[in-house]
């Protein structure tokens, strides 16, 4: 099997879709000559030209709205919002327009729009370039939300997003871009609502998202040294969510930890905990632990930034707390 970085895997899915389908095009800030602020779309201008690799003004309302308009005509635009913090600028178009057209029209319209974005802490960008906002969009009926953590998953899920007839908010994590992994020779679409068991275990289930998936894998390895067997599950898509897989895992392990980089309060871990307690209440041997960032705008200075966001050690501590209860 070939090996790709997470960054290359995103580019591979975009390029493959654009090669086979004239209705797919990409637009966003600095994505053409520069190849995107993260280098994801490097080389695509040369292959597909400026009509299909569209540099845009710094106009998040218009970029997202234009994507919705083209999608309503049956095209499959992929819009890049440079940092997920800037999704807030286009929130009206995402929440009131893209998510609602299908219902408000009584099923007449579809909005097959993919909105790619990235972000995350770990390089001291300060509070306006590093927050994680995936949970905001999981509260909006009509949207789908994906947050893959491996090259194989990011490629297969991006493909599925492009060919989904609904608006998809597609989260990538900045620190995952250099991550390498094996991918199938041909792109294999990954269905929404299907979690991946990253590692099997018997004592505790860790449900992790985004950058916290590799952190949870590290924590699981560390826990093994202490005789604790950790199962790590990546839901891969948050909306829809593979509730069955999460509940089945916790029924087996009887303990659960959720882990994301977003602030804990009101984060997606709360939804995961609710799903698990409702589906596996009689099996739980300990309160569900939530791991996430501390409740503050992210500070710039590296020491404060690193303290505020979670790491493998925080997952390991949470795992140990659940085991200690039994």
């Amino acid at each position, binding site marked *: 099997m070939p090996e790709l970085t997470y960054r290359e895997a995103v580019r591979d899915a975009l390029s493959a879709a654009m090669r086979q389908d004239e209705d797919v*095009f990409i637009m966003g800030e600095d994505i053409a000559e520069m190849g995107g602020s993260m280098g994801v779309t490097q080389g695509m201008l040369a292959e597909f030209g400026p*009509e*299909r690799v*569209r540099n*845009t*003004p710094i*106009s998040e*309302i*218009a*970029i*997202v*709205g*234009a*994507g*919705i*308009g*083209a*999608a*309503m*005509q*049956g*095209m499959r*635009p992929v819009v890049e919002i440079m940092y997920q913090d800037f999704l807030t600028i286009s929130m*009206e*178009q995402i929440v*009131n*327009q893209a998510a609602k*057209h*299908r*219902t*408000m*029209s*009584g*099923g*007449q*319209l*579809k909005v*097959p729009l993919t909105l790619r974005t990235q972000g995350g802490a770990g390089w001291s960008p300060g509070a306006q370039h590093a927050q994680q906002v995936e949970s905001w969009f999981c509260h909006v*009926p*009509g949207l*789908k939300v994906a947050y893959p953590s491996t090259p194989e998953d990011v490629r297969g899920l991006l493909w599925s997003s492009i060919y989904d*007839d*609904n608006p998809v908010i597609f989260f990538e994590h900045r620190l995952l871009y250099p991550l390498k992994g094996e991918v199938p020779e041909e792109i294999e679409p990954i269905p929404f609502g299907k979690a991946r068991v990253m590692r099997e275990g018997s004592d505790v289930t860790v449900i992790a998202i985004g950058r916290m998936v590799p952190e949870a894998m590290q924590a699981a390895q560390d826990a093994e040294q202490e005789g604790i067997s950790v199962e790590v599950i990546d839901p891969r898509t948050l909306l829809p969510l593979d509730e069955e897989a999460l509940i089945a895992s916790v029924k087996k392990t009887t303990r659960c930890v959720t882990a994301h980089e977003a602030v804990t309060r009101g984060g997606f871990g709360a939804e995961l905990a609710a799903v698990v307690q409702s589906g596996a209440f009689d099996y739980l041997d300990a309160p569900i632990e939530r791991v996430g960032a501390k409740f503050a705008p992210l500070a710039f200075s590296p020491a404060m930034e690193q303290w505020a966001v979670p790491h493998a050690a925080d997952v390991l501590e949470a795992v140990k707390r659940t085991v200690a209860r039994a």
Partner: protein
Amino acid sequence: MAKVEEKSVATGLSDERLRDLFREMLLMRRFEEKVEERFRAGELPGFLHVAIGQEAVAAGVMSALEPDDTIMSTHRAHAHTLAKGTHPNAIMAELYGKLEGCSQGYGGSMHLYDVANGMLGANAVVGGGLPQITGTALAYKLRKQPRVAVAFFGDGATNTGAFHESLNLAQLWKVPALFVLEMNGWAESTPMSQHLPITDLSERAKAFGMKAISVDGQDVEAVHDATAEARAYAVEGNGPVFLNVRTYRMVGHYIGDPQVYREKDEIADLRDTKDPIELLRARLEISDEDFEALDTEVTAIVEASVEFAKAGTDPNPEDALKYVYA
């Protein structure tokens, strides 16, 4: 360079065609009066805005479009939707929340849709549709289709970021869009003097280098001619056009608006001097007898639409979930 052109006397339509438009405008008027009456009788749920006084804009713009052209409208959408070809029964049934409505009861007055007839949605967020019209027009450009996408909005919308971003992007990419400003001088209850630092809103289009045409919105023929010119310009690949249409809202912002912000005799004065139906009636020298015959005909259509709507099907409550996802 931007061009700002003043349209003077228009000569583009035969008397026969103008009589058809007169009948259409009278139908809109009687439809809106019936909507007011039925709302006051407590039969219509929600929040309604009628377009009494603005009929010539809807009739004139739509008379110059081709069937494949598309529009997005505002919260004041009944006349636009009628003019685009939706049957009065389907609109009235929507206002009654029935399955036979043009949005199957999912949208209501502020979310009328009729995609088969090119009506891509009325938008209840001021300025919300404009970015999507830019994107719809982008799809026509990318697919090399000779179509235009038309956004309706009021002077209030020209103060939103969505307006400025949409016009900027549309002009930058020279997409075949028409931006139709229904300049009625009111942003809900707030007069121009309190929400606009300038009086000629074509200046805003000029700032983007966009062609702008100013036209008397109470003169249906002038509106038709200006739209025809704008449409030809846009489909030839010259870029979008801003239509600055001066019109008059002869009613409150919503049905039941006490209009405490407006001089009492202003509306009476407008009805005496600016009523587009009376102006056209005088111009075509329609006899009282002919007028009565037309009025009887359109009134019967409106009455029938109410009967149709009242006899319509109430949706199953659980079908509220039916169209969340495609």
